[in-house]
């Protein structure tokens, strides 16, 4: 049974088996997400279960089109709220994650590119800060993985990822302006 049918059926019947069927495929991803923010196995497990508890009522009242996206945003917000509640666990800089995650939420562009788009891209690439330009070129045009880019540039792995994400966002903004 597909997700949409399960969502509708759960909203109508409240049968927890249906919600379990929806939730289970994302449980290991959710655990990873929670671990990223909470950095503790037990807290992460509890968070996954607590998210499920909250979904029991939320999924009966909210109309959700894309369960995966909805679940991710809900889980991330839940973890960030947990961090805010318990400052002692605040081992991850929230602001950095917020910016990163918000940047990631942009929908991938699947439009057909024209000749002038490539020209715009080249202009905008040059306009990026050198680190971003270098990482974006290596990742998108030369298809290098983060590890390779880190080795080639000497940047830290996290920096590489950050340069690519921010470079991509800046590139998009620049091309929309032109």
């Amino acid at each position, binding site marked *: 049974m597909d997700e949409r049918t399960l969502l509708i059926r759960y909203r109508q019947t409240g049968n927890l088996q249906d919600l379990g069927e929806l939730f289970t495929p994302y449980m290991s991803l959710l655990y990873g997400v929670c671990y990223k923010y909470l950095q503790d196995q037990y807290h992460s*497990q509890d968070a996954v279960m607590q998210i499920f508890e909250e979904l029991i009522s939320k999924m009966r009242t909210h109309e959700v089109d894309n369960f995966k996206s909805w679940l991710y945003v809900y889980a991330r917000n839940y973890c960030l709220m947990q961090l805010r509640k318990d400052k002692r666990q605040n081992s991850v800089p929230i602001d950095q994650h917020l910016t990163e995650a918000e940047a990631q939420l942009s929908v991938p562009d699947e439009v057909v590119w024209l000749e002038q788009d490539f020209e715009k891209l080249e202009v905008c690439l040059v306009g990026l800060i050198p680190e971003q330009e270098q990482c974006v070129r290596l990742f998108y045009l030369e*298809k290098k993985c983060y590890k390779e880019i880190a080795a080639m540039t000497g940047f830290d792995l996290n920096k590489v990822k950050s340069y690519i994400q921010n470079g991509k966002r800046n590139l998009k903004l620049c091309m929309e302006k032109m």
Partner: protein
Amino acid sequence: MDNNYQLSRIHNYVAGLMSREDMHALEREAINDPFLQDAIDGYKLQNGVETAPLSLLQKRLAERIEQRGLERNRRFFGWQRLTVGLVAAVMFVVVCSLLVFRHLQQKPTNSAQVEGITIITPALRVQVVPEENSDARPLKGWDRFSQELHKNLSSYTNAISVDVQFDIVNGHADDIRISGTSDSHFVEKIKETIQQELLWEGEKANFRLHIGAE
């Protein structure tokens, strides 16, 4: 995409077991899928995918779903519902008892026909008003009784009321006593009507008979 497949990819990626091409493909995928990216970051921080916490989570979820089913059953047979059910059952029994009691009380009065029976034939109007201790009823019905009266009293046109009493022995009227008139011929006609070709139900007859021209 299949969850276990994604998990094994994350495991291979974090553990450095992937080719550079596969790593790049997963990174490209993750850059457009923040859910996947955050999960990869999380497992990286945990230094790899560990199956123990995930198995435990699966178990907890299964137990939670099972528990909900039990809760539902408990709620279904909760004390509130049981109390309401019990009260409803008691009320049902009380109402049924009252109805049966009332029915049993009404039965003798129905057969005694306290309200009286009026039978109208083309020429005679016969009204039977039984007393309370009377349970007599013609086996062929009051219509037939009235027709017999009509046959026997066709020569009478004046209104008359008499009290009739008799016992019923083996369906036959016995010891018929008629009072309220001095017309012995009329009395005989009524006695004949009661006796002739008529069988009776009950044990005792005690009714007032009003006969008048229509």
